[in-house]
């Protein structure tokens, strides 16, 4: 299955005088749990809204599920979207929610939805507004998954949930990925959890794609070098992403493969996804994108202020 679930080319969206997203070019392959990461205002929600057809692009274009226009009947059938605020109708019971969704969609797996809610211990006759936050999130997710989508889009799904509810919610999402091969694209602030959940990362910054790729490839192509601060500047020719420098010692996060030679006096360590993501978020000028000739490096000479080690 070599299709792209979301493909954008020069995609841009302007609200009034502000570009929420600009020159966004990316391709998210099917069969992944892809994490969309970036600071507040980076354009994550805008990108997701464009992909599910809730907004129209100002510039460029976007297709879903292998070339379908967002919002087209085929795209709507194949995509389920759970928005940021865990949308459930507060005055409807869980049973009413299932009934409504079933009648508003062409496909709806009622037995799955009922079995899932029973498994979760969510009473069908209780009004959604009376459920706990975790249960409301699970109800919204169950309704979305019962549509048997090929792509599940989640905007900040776990931001408001406690740790247990967060774990259970992600377990439901990942089980759907394991059972039915649903592709997942989710935006998140919870970096620590991404490492376990996501196998594809897209980092958005100031409305542009800064990093995109399979997590394993990204981790294999970055190293943390630790050595004498005085020699740190020698690496200006290397693709340095981020520098943390103390008076004597410096840590450089560089793009380098595991078998690249380590300079004498320096130690190389593998990096985790959280460390990698933070490094890029702190250096909006650096980028790691797939494809030849698109690696931009951050030259030391530009005098990016380096963060001093604690």
């Amino acid at each position: 299955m070599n299709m792209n679930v979301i493909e954008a080319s020069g995609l841009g969206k302007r609200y009034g005088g502000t570009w929420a997203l600009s020159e966004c070019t990316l391709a998210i392959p099917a069969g992944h749990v892809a994490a969309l990461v970036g600071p507040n205002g980076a354009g994550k929600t805008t990108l997701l809204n464009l992909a599910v057809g809730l907004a129209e692009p100002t510039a460029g274009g976007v297709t879903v599920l292998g070339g379908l226009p967002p919002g087209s009947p085929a795209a709507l059938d194949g995509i389920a979207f759970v928005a940021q605020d865990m949308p459930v109708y507060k005055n409807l019971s869980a049973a009413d929610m299932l009934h409504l969704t079933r009648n508003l969609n062409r496909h709806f797996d009622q037995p799955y939805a009922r079995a899932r809610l029973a498994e979760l211990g969510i009473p069908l006759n209780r009004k959604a507004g009376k459920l706990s936050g975790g249960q409301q999130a699970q109800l919204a997710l169950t309704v979305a998954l019962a549509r048997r989508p090929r792509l599940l889009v989640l905007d900040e799904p776990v931001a408001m949930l406690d740790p247990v509810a967060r774990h259970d919610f992600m377990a439901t999402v990942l089980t759907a990925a394991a059972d039915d091969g649903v592709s997942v694209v989710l935006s998140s602030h919870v970096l620590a959890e991404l490492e376990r959940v996501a196998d594809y990362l897209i980092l958005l910054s100031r409305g542009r794609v800064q990093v995109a790729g399979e997590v394993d490839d990204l981790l294999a192509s970055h190293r943390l070098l630790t050595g004498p601060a005085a020699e740190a500047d020698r690496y200006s020719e290397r693709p340095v992403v981020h520098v943390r420098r103390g008076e004597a010692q410096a840590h450089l996060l560089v793009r380098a493969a595991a078998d690249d030679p380590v300079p004498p006096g320096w130690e190389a360590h593998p990096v985790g996804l959280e460390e990698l993501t933070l490094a890029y978020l702190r250096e909006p000028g650096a980028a790691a994108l797939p494809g030849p000739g698109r690696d931009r490096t951050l030259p030391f000479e530009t005098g990016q202020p380096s963060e001093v080690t604690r």
Partner: protein
Amino acid sequence: MDIDKGTGEGQAGVSPAGAGGGDRSTAPSGQAAAASPIEFRLDAASGVPTYLQLVHQVEHALRLGYLKPGDQLPKVRDVVASLAINPNTVLKAYRDLEVKGLAAGRPGQGTFVQATLSQVALPELTALRRSLSGWLAAADGAGLDEDGMVALFTSALRDFYEHRSGARTRGGAAGGETEGVA
């Protein structure tokens, strides 16, 4: 993602590693359909990649006799559901174990243990553990803390193997993997 859907349940009665099994520290935590004798856990703070943690836990269980050839490894779906991790991570771990010759996939059933790493049967292991506990108590009584015990054990272990390989002097091949402590 090509994941075996929960068949295998029928033939799942794979008997857990013999000998009472009372001291099995990794017993399934009350979850239904525990077809495998082991259950995975994750240490987020270890810095070890998730798939490697799974690989290490299987190897550890093989060494200690909790897993024997023919035992079923936890189903991918069950691991995903209980740990909330990416299915590809579990598949990667199982692929790694297959490459090492320790496990093999059976179409439509799951992944099963193929080889063993434990050189000693469970009763002997229990006896060895008991004598080690005695040593630990003595070390504790002498005022050694945990780090001290680890340091002493590691150094004694190294001496032991250096001495042994010195005594043999002919081409290694004897012990194979000597990474005993996990």
